[in-house]
């Protein structure tokens, strides 16, 4: 028998959506709205009605929806469905363990720190808490990661445009990039946030038909799970096979709870600049704390629209995941192709494109913010007036987008590169988090220890991955390796910080005001104490616990239905 047929594209060739003029019209109308928002906000600014814009003035519903929307990128949507098709219901762990607890933690515990200490990025926090070398390393990593991942997002978007709609790759890359650039330059962060809220509804409308069709065709959740019983118990029971010797390819419970649920998830949600930035745009501390918690509720429900249709796809799209046919990544596009009528298809494609662009826009914003304020202002050209830095910010945005374009072409030439970048930067995520969280809760952490925690943690994360790839150590799957790699990176980084502290003293307590637990900033009515006076029905803790309870209920529901 001849060799395995190799597929070198993330989506299979041959899946072409046939869009009618009405569908294209819907896409174009949406893009007009996006640009329109940019112009409108610019106009508002020109007439000084900036009162209504971001900069600590947005209501909770807007920041909450923008928060979840910034995370709801198209790569995530498509790949959660792909994971559902490949690994089954265990994929929900990404949401109910791997997101909601961290979002609740961010809202209840971390937001007062960010809001009160007025640091605007994690690198800046590290500068104040530790020292310049910690800050520089972190800032450089953030900057590089943002711009390269923006390129990966751009490539993925262009690839989808090419394979689903037939637009040539080069044109898709450049046109998409210039479009995103224009709406960022026009309206800034406000424009990005407004677009994210608008996009959230469109994305929901892109997922709702999927869930309706998937459940109708397969006979509801119960019917779906019965028909998937042939795939083994782990496919329809999320905790089945997660004992240490078990066979659930998603991982074992230690990896899931501590690796995914704590290390990876907290690392992302507490340090991801785009997310935190949306919280910080809220009108007051209470609203900022509620932002991630408001966002947690859609997060609980979204797997119904991604994971469940992915699972249904393997029944409804014969041959999904088989060589020569469609790949798992094609699950959602294939369902669109097979079921959606005129008009609804246009909405779905609009949602997908919007999600891609917002992902790229968030990356570019992060790049711009960290480059301009953490690197340029701190090291390259300090002490200039604000005007100067705002101009630098605009130039940086443009440069960032063009670097992203270059990266996208690079990814087009070497199809695995996107994954390599994601893997590469994932090695840094957890060590940065270790540095951050220990800096926050352990006031004795020495001034230089952050740097060592970062380096050692990264080496161990990377080392685990390398040894796994070389076959020296064994994990059940790539997903399991990322979980354990995170745990190992965390422990190594923490240990390194503890050891480094022996030789190193922390900054004096006076300099740590507002940066360490127990020394929160008391700042005209925005102290954490004020939040306690908020009415009980606005308590972040209450709503946060509600979100966690909802997750538990869903787990129970899934177990019963299977």
């Amino acid at each position, binding site marked *: 028998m001849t060799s395995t047929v190799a597929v070198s594209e993330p989506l299979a060739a041959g899946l072409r959506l046939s869009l009618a003029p*009405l569908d294209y*019209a*819907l896409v174009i*109308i*949406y893009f007009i*709205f996006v640009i*329109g*928002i940019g112009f*409108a906000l610019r*106009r*508002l600014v020109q*007439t*000084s*009605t*900036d*009162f*209504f814009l971001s*900069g*600590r*003035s947005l209501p909770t519903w*807007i920041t909450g929806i923008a928060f979840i929307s910034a995370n709801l990128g198209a790569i995530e949507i498509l790949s959660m469905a792909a994971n559902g098709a490949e690994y089954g219901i265990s994929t929900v762990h990404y949401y109910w363990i791997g997101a909601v607890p961290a979002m609740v933690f961010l809202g209840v515990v971390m937001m007062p720190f960010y809001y009160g200490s*007025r640091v*605007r990025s994690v690198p800046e926090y590290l500068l104040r808490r530790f020292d310049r070398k910690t800050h520089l390393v972190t800032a450089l990593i953030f900057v590089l990661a943002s711009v390269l991942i923006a390129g990966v997002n751009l490539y993925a978007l262009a690839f989808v445009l090419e394979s689903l709609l037939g637009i040539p790759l080069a044109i898709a890359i450049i046109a998409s990039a210039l479009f995103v650039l224009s709406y*960022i*330059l026009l309206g*800034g*962060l406000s424009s990005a946030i*407004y677009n994210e*809220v*608008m996009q959230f*509804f*469109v994305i929901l*409308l892109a997922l*709702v*038909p999927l869930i*309706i*069709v998937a459940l*109708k*065709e397969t006979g509801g959740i119960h019917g779906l799970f019965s028909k998937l019983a042939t795939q083994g118990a782990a496919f329809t029971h999320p905790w089945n096979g997660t004992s240490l010797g078990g066979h659930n390819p998603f991982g074992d419970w230690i990896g899931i709870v501590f690796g995914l649920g704590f290390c990876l998830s907290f690392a992302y949600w507490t340090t991801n600049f785009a997310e935190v*930035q949306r919280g*910080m*745009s809220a009108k007051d501390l209470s609203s900022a704390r509620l932002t991630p918690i408001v966002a947690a509720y859609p997060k609980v429900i979204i797997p119904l629209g991604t994971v469940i249709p992915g699972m249904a796809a393997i029944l409804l799209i014969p041959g999904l995941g088989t060589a020569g046919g469609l790949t798992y990544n094609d699950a959602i596009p294939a369902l669109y192709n*097979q*079921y*959606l*009528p*005129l*008009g*609804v298809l*246009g*909405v779905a494609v609009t949602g997908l494109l919007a999600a891609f662009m917002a992902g790229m826009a968030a990356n570019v*914003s992060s790049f*711009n*913010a960290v480059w*301009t*304020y953490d690197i340029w202002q701190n090291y390259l050209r300090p002490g200039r007036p604000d005007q100067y830095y*705002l101009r630098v*910010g*605009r130039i*940086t945005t443009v440069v960032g987008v063009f670097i992203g374009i270059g990266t996208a072409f690079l990814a087009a030439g070497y199809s695995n590169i996107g994954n390599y970048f994601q893997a590469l930067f994932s090695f840094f995520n957890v060590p940065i988090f270790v540095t951050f969280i220990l800096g926050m809760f352990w006031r004795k952490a020495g001034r230089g220890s952050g740097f060592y925690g970062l380096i050692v943690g990264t080496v161990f994360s990377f080392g685990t991955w390398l040894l796994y790839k070389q076959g020296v150590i064994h994990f059940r799957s790539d997903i399991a390796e990322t979980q354990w790699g995170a745990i190992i990176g965390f422990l190594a980084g923490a240990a390194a910080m503890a050891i480094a502290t022996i030789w190193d003293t922390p900054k004096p307590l006076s300099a740590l005001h507002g940066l360490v637990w127990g020394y929160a900033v008391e700042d005209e009515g925005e102290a954490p104490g004020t939040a306690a006076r908020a009415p009980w029905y606005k308590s972040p803790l209450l709503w946060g616990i509600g979100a966690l309870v909802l997750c538990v209920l869903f787990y129970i529901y899934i177990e019963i239905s299977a």
Partner: protein
Amino acid sequence: MSSASGHEMPARAEAASARRRKPDLTPEEAKIWRLAKLFDLRSFIGALMLIFGILVIIPGFLASPATIDKAAGINLALWIGGIMLVLAAFFLTWVILKPPPPVTMAEMEAARKAREEFGTQGPAGH
């Protein structure tokens, strides 16, 4: 201000109802208020959902049995179009009934000063 219940209204409600009274705004402020209402995010979302809803629901009324059969026997266009129109009604009603409050020039200046002093999320300005 009427207070039927007889006890003191909480401060916030008092302010809101003060705003709902016909405001004494300068022409400049009135123009700004109109713009703020027009360009409120809810207006954008409502308008988008309205346009999308109409464009999607019309093919739904004209859908052939073959199209409905293709979509697992459900007239998806009707449902999705319907949901969008409901969302449109919700947002547009909301922005009409509870428009953003008008602000005076004085308030805007004060806010700007406060922001300058304490710094905002700087990267907003790109």
